[in-house]
């Protein structure tokens, strides 16, 4: 019996199977994978000498053995018309996923590949043009004629300001340096687009300007620092679920005391080396916390600040560090800007206010007890027995980034760590965990920084919903689910795209390319219509409203390069299958668009404009784009002490041949070329000598005082509204599914257990509302509505619910407000007020097949 098809034997890769090195396509951890491809009809044997794994498949021990699970095999058809077995298993020689560890996401890399035999047959194969209000297949040439015709018409009649773009800026997930450079070159070199936003937010910005503008890039530590730290702090980061192998291979062994020998080797002689302490700052009792409570009894501390108050808490911990003199004045004087430090001291640490008064105020704002704040400061910064400096690694993620007041939140946690010199030493660092991998290389972006550095960037969502823009081009993201205030956004974009569709005609539409282009341009002038282009792997919710859909090729369908987040480890993700149909890499699509634009301009003798679009002519293959992108980086023939001057992702000097040679060991960016020998050198850990500012000194920042909640949320806290919307809602992710589930929604291994988006409700609230696990509820407020399945759990406090942010069947973003931090235009996805009601009846199938057991209870 099984809820979906299962296997009890799998094809064994023969010794001569083609072996490829690659890296998982999903989360920030970037586990190493090995892919084996061989023709259907051949099989290897169980003995070590008879298979490509080189292991005896009759007798494997736990952990040490090679995992080859049912989800790690698929059969695909290549362009030669033959069928091949594809096996994607965790690599055993990666410094990241040591021991061949892997998560429930990466383990499905094989079954997520395109196959006509699986649900992934849904992949887009051909360009689709909306003709007569239905999608009809067209050739790439026709698609490009329409797209370039409309884009050029908009430039001629109006300007690039009418072209709005939403595109990925990340690595992994079929993106990487090559596709980033393709997209960046098209929109910043060819077009001069300023209304562009990043995949998961409404503007083109860094989520961590609060750190970068201090001189600290967010990826400054190495995964091994989690093995060496005396204390690990997770602040708004649920690493066990969202960076699982970083937790199980680097944090958990340290909590269990299994890395003490490594510590003794890395630390000064005689320095205390004990199992780590663990501080979790999160409104929820996350599984990262409760698993640690099992592994490190008595060495865990949980701080649960009120939503939005984290920066006040970080400042209060820093005040304790100051008060108890857990800092090194030499470090502060030599490495940080002491003039700015005075402002930080007075504003953020409130040194002019008596300690007891300052702490009482912090306690009342954050809801965290003074004793716990002091305990956290001791665990983070108190010198160890014997006097050695404590080594604390602080990892933060969306709980801080997508918090109210993004800039101040991130700045406060970074400053807390720098005050106690928890940066640039083994076992320290203050950085983001990351969500996806990275791979950013582009010409200069239109927004240099926060409000303190030429910002804030434009809110492109608002630009569009206000009725501006003529062309909206969405690449590899699904904003109908992923943008804040998503309900208003998708209703408005739907309305505007339909307006244009209606304008094209009630019956017959123009049959010639030029006729269609002309009519679209006329419609864009005469109405409020919007021409929507979506470039993606699948027909997404957003793509359903598009006029033109462009099929992109995915992970494994081309060579790509990316870095992971926790070690900045650059590796080559080798091509191992052909893309479906005529799908193409994003950089190839950008190249085709550019060449078509150039041709249109040349035809009318406009050489000046044509030349802008010639950037891609020299890109014949993936490595050409990679090498061309490297020219964006500054001179990297510099000594090690100068590493802070380099962009975090600098890979200048690296070639595909080099990456093939180093394989899973990769090279850590920023890469330098030795000034004497020219030899490539990676950077294990950043800021040991200097910070990334002009003078090399850390740039302190005085955070704002507590000013309460922004109007978009405070409206729910007053009068009648407070009764109408009695619950706080925070949001986040789940272990087993990746982002909007674009692949996972096709895998029964994922959808059976998580058939719907869900909310976590405390037992007391559930009792009051008369709901139980597996019930279906509506969650709503004045912004939007969403239907969710219920989990009852003590992960949340009474009065607070947690909602899954993205699911193919709905999103908590419908209820989030349009508020963004005025300093950065980063949204607050993780806090608003809502009401809940049970939808009468139930779905017996869900009750029968989806588990509702409490997923943070391990004891």
């Amino acid at each position: 019996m099984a809820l979906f098809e299962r296997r009890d034997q799998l094809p064994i890769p023969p010794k001569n199977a083609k072996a490829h090195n690659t890296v998982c396509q999903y989360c920030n951890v970037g586990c190493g994978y090995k892919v084996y491809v061989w023709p259907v009809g051949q099989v290897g044997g169980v003995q070590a000498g008879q298979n490509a794994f080189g292991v005896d498949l009759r007798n494997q021990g736990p952990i040490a053995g090679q995992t080859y699970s049912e989800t790690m095999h698929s059969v695909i058809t290549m362009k030669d018309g033959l069928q091949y077995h594809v096996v994607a298993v965790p690599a055993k020689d990666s410094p990241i996923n040591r021991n061949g560890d892997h998560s429930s996401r990466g383990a499905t890399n094989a079954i997520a590949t395109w196959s006509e035999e699986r649900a992934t047959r849904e992949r887009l194969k051909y360009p689709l043009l909306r003709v007569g209000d239905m999608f009809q297949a067209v050739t790439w040439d026709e698609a490009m004629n329409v797209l370039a015709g409309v884009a050029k018409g908009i430039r001629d009649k109006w300007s690039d300001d009418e072209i709005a773009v939403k595109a990925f800026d990340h690595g992994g997930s079929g993106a990487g340096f090559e596709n980033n450079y393709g997209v960046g070159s098209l929109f910043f070199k060819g077009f001069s687009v300023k209304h562009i936003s990043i995949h998961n937010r409404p503007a083109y910005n860094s989520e961590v300007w609060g750190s970068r503008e201090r001189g600290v890039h967010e990826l400054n530590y190495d995964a091994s620092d989690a093995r060496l730290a005396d204390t690990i702090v997770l602040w708004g980061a649920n690493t066990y679920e969202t960076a699982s192998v970083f937790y199980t291979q680097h944090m958990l062994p340290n909590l269990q005391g299994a890395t003490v020998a490594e510590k003794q080797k890395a630390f000064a002689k005689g320095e205390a080396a004990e199992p780590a302490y663990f501080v979790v700052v999160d409104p929820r009792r996350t599984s990262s916390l409760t698993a640690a409570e099992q592994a490190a009894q008595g060495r865990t501390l949980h701080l649960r600040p009120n939503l939005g108050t984290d920066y006040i808490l970080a400042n209060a911990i820093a005040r304790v560090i100051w008060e108890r003199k857990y800092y090194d004045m030499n470090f502060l004087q030599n490495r940080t800007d002491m003039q700015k430090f005075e402002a930080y001291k007075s504003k953020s640490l409130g040194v002019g206010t008596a300690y007891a008064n300052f702490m009482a105020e912090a306690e009342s704002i954050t809801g965290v007890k003074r004793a716990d704040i002091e305990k956290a400061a001791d665990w983070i910064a108190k010198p160890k027995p014997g006097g050695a400096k404590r080594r604390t690694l602080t990892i933060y993620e969306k709980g801080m980034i997508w918090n109210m007041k993004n800039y101040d939140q991130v700045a406060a946690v970074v400053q807390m760590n720098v005050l106690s010199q928890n940066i640039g030493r083994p076992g320290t660092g203050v950085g983001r965990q990351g969500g996806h991998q990275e791979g950013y290389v582009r010409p200069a972006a239109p927004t240099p920084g926060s409000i303190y550095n030429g910002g804030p960037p434009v809110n492109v969502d608002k630009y569009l919903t206000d009725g501006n823009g003529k062309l909206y081009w969405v690449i590899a993201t699904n904003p109908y689910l992923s943008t804040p205030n998503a309900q208003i956004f998708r209703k408005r974009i739907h309305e505007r795209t339909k307006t244009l569709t209606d304008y094209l005609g009630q019956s017959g539409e123009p049959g010639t390319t030029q006729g269609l282009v002309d009519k679209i341009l006329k419609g864009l002038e005469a109405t409020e219509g919007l021409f929507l282009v979506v470039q993606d792997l699948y027909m997404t919710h957003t793509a359903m409203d598009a006029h033109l859909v462009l099929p992109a090729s995915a992970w494994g369908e081309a060579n790509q390069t990316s870095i992971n987040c926790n070690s900045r480890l650059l590796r080559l993700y080798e091509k191992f299958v052909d893309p479906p149909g005529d799908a193409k890499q994003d950089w190839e699509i950008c190249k085709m668009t550019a060449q078509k634009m150039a041709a249109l301009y040349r035809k009318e003798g406009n050489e000046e404009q044509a030349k802008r679009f010639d950037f891609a002519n020299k890109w014949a293959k993936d490595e050409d784009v990679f090498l061309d992108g490297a020219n964006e980086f500054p001179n990297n023939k510099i000594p090690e002490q100068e590493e802070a001057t380099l962009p975090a992702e600098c890979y200048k000097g690296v070639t595909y041949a080099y990456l093939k040679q180093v394989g899973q060991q990769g090279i850590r960016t920023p890469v330098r070329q030795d000034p004497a020998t020219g030899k490539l050198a990676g950077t294990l850990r950043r800021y040991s000598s200097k910070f990334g500012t002009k003078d090399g000194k850390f740039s302190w920042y005085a955070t704002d005082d507590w000013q309460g909640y922004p109007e978009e949320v405070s409206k729910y806290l007053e009068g009648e509204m407070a009764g109408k919307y009695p619950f706080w809602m925070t949001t986040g992710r789940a272990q087993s599914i990746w982002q909007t589930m674009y692949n996972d929604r096709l895998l029964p291994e994922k959808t059976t257990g998580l058939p719907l988006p869900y909310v976590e409700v405390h037992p007391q609230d559930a009792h009051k509302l008369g709901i139980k696990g597996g019930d279906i509820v509506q969650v709503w407020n004045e912004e939007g509505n969403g239907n969710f399945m219920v989990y009852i759990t003590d992960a949340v406090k009474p009065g607070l619910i947690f909602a899954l942010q993205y699911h193919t069947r709905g999103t908590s973003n419908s209820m989030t407000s349009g508020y963004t931090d005025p300093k950065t235009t980063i949204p607050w996805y993780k806090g608003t007020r809502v009401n809940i009601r049970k939808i009468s009846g139930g779905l017996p199938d869900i009750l029968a097949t989806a588990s509702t057991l409490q997923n943070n209870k391990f004891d």
Partner: protein
Amino acid sequence: MKAVISRRKFVQISVLSAASLGVGKAAYWFAPSLPYPALKVGNINNLQTGQAVYFNYPDARAQAILVKLGRQATGGIGKGRDVVAFSAACTHMGCGVQYKEGRFVCPCHFSMFDPAKNGQVYQGLASTYLPQIELRLDSNGDIYARAIGGLIWGRASNI
């Protein structure tokens, strides 16, 4: 692999492949696809709710767990449809899962499985449900393991 092949050549390749490699049966095996032994693993009248019984199946090297859950389960046998059995090797990296208060917990990396829902992973790093063992009940109340619906960790074939 990008080379374009003529339709005629494609047909030739396909026919050749089909003839020489036996394409039909090569791609997938749906569980249960192997000759599993019938093994007596207990008697329904001796089972106590919540008490796990360990046994080996389909051979001496594979540990399995039989348990009466006290709640109806997918594939459960007995009056309450609550008696189920699973491979005890965690599908993540092969450690032995433990039965604790109505669920299976892996001590190595904390994967958790719901025995009432086909061994569904509801937390943790495992991607695959625990393989559920098909049980049969005879008129004496004896319980027999009959087959396994899923691949035991570490193997390329259950038998």
